[in-house]
């Protein structure tokens, strides 16, 4: 090997030889990033978006149904909130392994855990949003002869929208962050390049910084997208519900 010939130890064996910057593990090697964007970083980014999107999507469906139920049967909201808070306390690293006997070392295992974690951020926000609909607005809807369904679709949900988006923002940002831990179970997501870089005799810096920056960038981009969505869907709620 060329590396052995030059006498310097290969820093990142699983990528074979590299430029001097890579071999000497400088702070950041843009050459490595452009060379391995296609085979390492981009696939990891796409997988990360998938892991997050599926988790938040399913979490949204569950939390939304539960919130509608708790809106009609108020005594349910305390226990549901308690259970989701308890689920959230379980360490992700541990929850993945505890689910393995049931769903194996699969993406399903990761998704089940990630969905469980979204509930604590989505459900209370959805319930708060629905409960904060002013009684006046509901009276008007009734006076106008709206049915229960019309009231929900045209009055309650639009007014609850800012709180719903606020919950989604927190859930998306947290899920992007938690999905990096999936790398401990599966070779998937932006956590995996970091995981590999840490396994090197001397942690490969470029890979850690590049994948880390992508994870943070993804979280912030998703957050901005939701803020933009709220501006379009609920233009009256510009003042931030952070």
């Amino acid at each position, binding site marked *: 090997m060329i590396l052995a010939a030059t006498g310097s130890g290969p820093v990142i064996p699983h990528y074979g030889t590299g430029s001097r910057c890579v071999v000497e593990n400088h702070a950041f090697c843009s050459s490595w990033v452009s060379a391995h964007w296609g085979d390492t970083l981009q696939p990891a980014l796409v997988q990360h978006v998938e892991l997050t999107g599926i988790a938040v999507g399913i979490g949204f469906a569950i939390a939304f149904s539960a919130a509608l139920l708790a809106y*009609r049967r*108020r005594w349910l909201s305390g226990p549901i909130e308690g259970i989701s*808070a*308890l689920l*959230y*306390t*379980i*360490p*992700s*690293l*541990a*929850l993945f*392994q*505890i689910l*393995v*006997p*049931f769903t194996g070392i699969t993406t399903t295992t990761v998704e089940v855990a990630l969905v469980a974690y979204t509930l604590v951020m989505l459900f209370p926000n959805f319930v708060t949003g629905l*409960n904060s609909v002013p*009684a006046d607005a*509901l*009276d008007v809807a*009734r006076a106008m002869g709206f049915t*229960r369904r019309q*009231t929900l679709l045209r009055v309650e949900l639009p007014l609850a929208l800012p709180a719903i988006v606020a919950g989604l923002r*927190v859930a998306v*940002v*947290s899920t*992007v*962050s*938690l999905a*990096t*831990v999936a*790398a*401990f179970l599966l070779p998937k997501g932006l*956590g995996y390049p*970091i*995981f590999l*870089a*840490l396994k090197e005799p001397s*942690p490969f*810096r470029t890979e*850690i*910084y590049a*994948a*880390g920056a992508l*994870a*943070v960038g993804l*979280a*912030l981009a998703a*957050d901005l997208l939701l803020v933009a969505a709220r501006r379009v869907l609920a233009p009256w709620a510009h003042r931030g519900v*952070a």
Partner: protein
Amino acid sequence: MTSAAVNLHTFLDAIRFIGSNWHLLLDKAAQQLELAGAALGLAMAVVLPLGIALGHLRRGSTVAIAGSIAGRALPVLVLIAAFLTVFGIGFVNNMIALAVLASGPILINSYEGVAHVETNVVDAARASGMTAGEVLRRVELPLALPLLAAGVRVAAVTVVATAPIAAIAGGGGLGDIIVNQAGYGFDGVLGASICAMALSVFAYGVLTVLERAVTPAGLRRLAELEKGNRRRETVPVANIT
């Protein structure tokens, strides 16, 4: 064999592992709590005064909100990996990474707690001749305490739940066993995972009780009153259907 039976066997093996290795697990759990405690202490020492000061001055809400969002958006694995390249493997790296993670909820809650004390109440305290320091100590802080305590609880639970990941950077703790299936087998991995879950749930319980204990009695009564009021208000809403 049905899959349910497989599951049961796997869990029985894990429990057997816990039974025969409880000494090791207790050691690792203590290590994990030590790391979590140090990180939480560091975060509280730095961020709590900052949030309270900003809240008292009622400025810097952007800083508080941005700080809490950044704290949430930075994945702990990224933090640990990035700090590893700076501080090397070991306790300090992990403590700082977890402290950053804990800072978000502590900062935003201490800021919001103090800044959102009603201006009428603060004005009344000033009018009765209290100095700025007295207003902070005797009015703002007691009223902010529930939110402050909630922020610390969220931070503590997050740190205890995240600490196992520190194992990848020599942080020790139950994560050492969870990430080392080659050394301990799946029984060990599952056993340590169950212990880590129990530890987090235990911490959550203790902190929830503590949080209730530090809330001033007057505020607790007020919260109950408000709850009662809300319930009365909700009756017509529920009837509208």
